[in-house]
């Protein structure tokens, strides 16, 4: 009874402190909102509006038909039409266009005459990602054009006898936004939880109030519980709101169960609370706490598989990454949203989280009393 009253007093105090401070209130709302829209709109691999230039020396009906196809796609945007080869260097060097299509003077003649015709494509290799993807799109367009020509009997060459028909599961149109946004709840809650908790103990140490807690009859476990609650609650709230936002705002499908979603987020947030409190217990000042939080967050996100696949990393890094909580929640969230996973299916992602929490939380509690000056 006594202990309950103490813990309750502690939890109430933690919440009042966060809600009374305009800066803390902002931390709970601001960064999550910014991240949601930045990741949702900006972080995408789908190419749009790639500027290209055209040098059409053939000027025939067929070359215009091919160019119309390019122009008609969302991916490309015509930047300039060239009139001589001399302009090619300039247009690429000055980044006026990332792609140049050069159709030679004998394009039409060759095609009509049943000869293979070539289209020269020059891509700006300074950004290989864009160049590769854009070339892929162009190949598609040229392939389609070939088939149309064959069907019309213009080209005497039959299409390839073996054709690849591809189909992507879970994300039919391969929209990278689904891939990003489905995992956002994890990253957003991480930022809120890390900042709130990493500052909580450090702030009290800096202002001297932590000693006052330590001489009061609180056990380390009680302090831990009191300090965890705000991060837990605000983190979960943010993660759930933005998961809903993913579905209603960005139209990402939600195919799994809500219980799996809540459970995996809860496990993850408890783990992050442990990380945050550990950082905070090590820090003697607010500044150290905040710096510590960023030192943890940056690699955690980069190595999480949010943007780049973990399989691409060197082996030793992959092994180290096993203690990174963010990688587990990202896999879990994608499986819940896109694959339709339930609790049983995401269990392999949950138990590593619980093990990490089982180490960080007690260590943080131990440090409350043992990290002193």
């Amino acid at each position, binding site marked *: 009874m*006594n202990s309950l*009253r*103490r813990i*309750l*007093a*502690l939890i*109430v*105090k933690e919440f*009042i*402190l966060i809600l*009374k*401070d305009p800066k803390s209130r902002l931390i709970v709302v601001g960064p999550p909102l910014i991240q949601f829209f930045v990741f949702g709109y900006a972080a995408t691999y789908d190419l749009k509006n790639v500027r290209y230039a055209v040098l059409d020396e053939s000027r025939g009906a067929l070359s215009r038909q091919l160019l119309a196809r390019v122009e008609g796609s969302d991916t490309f945007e015509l930047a300039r039409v060239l009139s001589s080869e001399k302009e090619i260097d300039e247009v690429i060097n000055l980044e006026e266009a990332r792609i140049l299509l050069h159709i030679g003077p004998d394009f039409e003649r060759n095609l009509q005459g049943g000869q293979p015709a070539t289209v020269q494509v020059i891509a700006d290799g300074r950004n290989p990602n864009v160049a590769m993807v854009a070339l892929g799109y162009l190949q598609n367009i040229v392939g389609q054009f070939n088939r149309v020509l064959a069907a019309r009997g213009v080209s005497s060459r039959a299409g390839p006898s073996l054709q690849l028909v591809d189909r992507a599961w879970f994300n039919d149109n391969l929209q990278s936004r689904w891939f990003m946004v489905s995992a956002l709840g994890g990253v957003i809650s991480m930022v809120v939880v890390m900042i709130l908790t990493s500052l909580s103990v450090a702030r009290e140490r800096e*202002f*001297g*109030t932590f*000693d*006052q*807690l*330590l*001489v*009061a*009859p*609180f*056990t380390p476990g*009680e302090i831990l519980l009191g300090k965890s609650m705000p991060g837990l609650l605000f983190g979960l709230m943010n993660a759930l709101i933005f998961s809903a936002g993913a579905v209603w705002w960005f139209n990402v499908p939600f195919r799994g169960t809500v219980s799996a979603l809540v459970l995996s987020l809860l496990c993850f947030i408890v783990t992050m609370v442990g990380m945050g409190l550990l950082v905070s217990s090590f820090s003697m000042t607010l500044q150290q706490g905040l710096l510590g939080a960023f030192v943890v967050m940056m690699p955690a996100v980069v190595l999480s598989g949010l943007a780049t696949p973990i399989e691409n990393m060197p082996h030793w890094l992959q092994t180290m990454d096993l203690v990174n909580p963010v990688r587990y929640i990202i896999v879990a969230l994608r499986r819940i949203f896109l694959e339709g996973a339930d609790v049983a299916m995401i269990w392999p992602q949950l138990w590593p989280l619980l093990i990490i929490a089982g180490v960080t939380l007690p260590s943080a509690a131990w440090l409350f*009393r*043992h990290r*002193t000056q």
Partner: protein
Amino acid sequence: MTNVVGSVAAARQDAVLSVRNLSKSFTAKNKAVTSGLQDVSLEAMAAQVTGLVGADGAGKTTLIRIAAGLLSPTSGSVTVLGLDSVAESIKIQSRVGYMPQKFGLYQDLTVAENMTLYADLQGVPVAQRSERYEQLLEMTGLAPFTRRRAGALSGGMKQKLGLACALIKSPRMLLLDEPTVGVDPVSRRELWKIVYKLVATDGIGVLVSTAYLDEAERCDHVVVLHEGALLASGTPDDFKKQMQGKVALVSPAAGEPTRPIYTHLASKNHIVDATIRSGRIRAVADNNAVNVVDDALPTGFAGTVAKAAPNFEDSFMLLIPRKGPQFQANGNQPALEKDIANEDVVVETRSLQKFFGDFEAVKKLSFDVHRGEIFGLLGPNGAGKSTTFRMLCGLLPASAGEIRVAGRDLRRSRAWARSRLGYMAQQFSMYGQLSVTENLGFFGKAYGLDRKRLRQRIDWAFEEFGLTPWADKAAGDLPGGYKQRLAMAAALLHEPEILFLDEPTSGVDPFARREFWLRINSFAQQGVTVIVTTHFMEEAEYCDRMLIMSRGDTLAMGTPAEIRALASTEENREPTIEDAFIALAEGQAGEA
């Protein structure tokens, strides 16, 4: 009403600072205007130390900041070395040495690097530097520590380094804002020696604000500010002349306890101030002190009352009007005659040691504290008293030895054992954003008080500490004295048996300090054991027993009378505790 004591000298040629009808008001966010200074005029002369004294919120810091060109006056003018503080503030800043309360030392730079940094900022020519550094380092005694990080210096050494940095360009005037707050008596004396030397040899003018009235007494000229207005100014002698006959010294008969008489006198009308000095009670009355005191003394008093020579502190206490709820020690309460030595031991240490790396911060300390005793831990900065204190509270593990507080080692005992002690940290450690009521509510519940009990205790705290008008104010916005009251109320809410107070009176004005000790006294009489650290040596008089530490070791332990006896010499038959402390500390320094 301005009550100017003595004659204000006609404006002389060598005034380094002249303040004319200066007013300054501050506008808060909600448009409320508070007045910082009202129509203040004063002058500071070259080759003189001018002291600025007053209680918290008197406007001392505001005045010094205006003189340094950091604030602009609302009306009136300040001229420093003939330069106007608004129009020519840049020139002033390059000719004046200014040392704010918290001097901006870079904690991670060494002593030498800090000095070089300030020399660069002040544009001191490189050719002059080595000579100037040598002078300053020699004067401040920092020469052996040039390679030490500023953050690793003791409080006193930091202030000396701050002073050295302020002096780096040989200024013609020095502005010092409470330079000795938080500095132990030995370092305090050294700091003042430096200032007086500069005044005598270089003829610079010094304007210094201070909360220590003994320091004010040694100034050439003193200005008393109160709530932004100039209350009086003159030489310390001018002030003292007005006090003739208003001070009495009460000497209790042999064996008669001093403290109950002191609490008794402090609560009487017409007695403006009562303090314990060298085992006697010094009482200031508004008139004819000996008669007033004679009438006020409890029946059966067997000692003597005599007229005493007034000092500046007496006149200061009489000058400043009191307001707000004053603590009234219950004078009618029968003075409990305690034989402390027979009470149970509530705190004991045996061969207590603490190492930080190789450094032995506390060396085999052993002492006992009995129930109902006020036990003082005294010593200069860095003596290990804070370390000892933190070990006793269970905030720091001991490296070796035993500690028992209320029969337990608090570090290893279960949480509920801590509910029997109250703790007040040196730094204000309430939640600044929470209101006074919320703070008290939180700490009450933290100690497991139930709803009804909590209500009772919070009501008690509001009444006892006069906190009612501040109930809904954020604790961080309280004035200094009230912050201290709140911290103490929070420490006492659960009625602890043992009260730990770490430097409770540091940075607090003389009124709050007196009130504080009266309170402590009354708690001790109710059987609360009090362990207190302080570096105000005159406060040691209020302790039953004290332990004086130096360099982690016991320098002396005993009652105030016993400690004073240690320093009794032919020349000084009635030494103060401070004399004793300095004699002991210097004696040890000589051995080492």
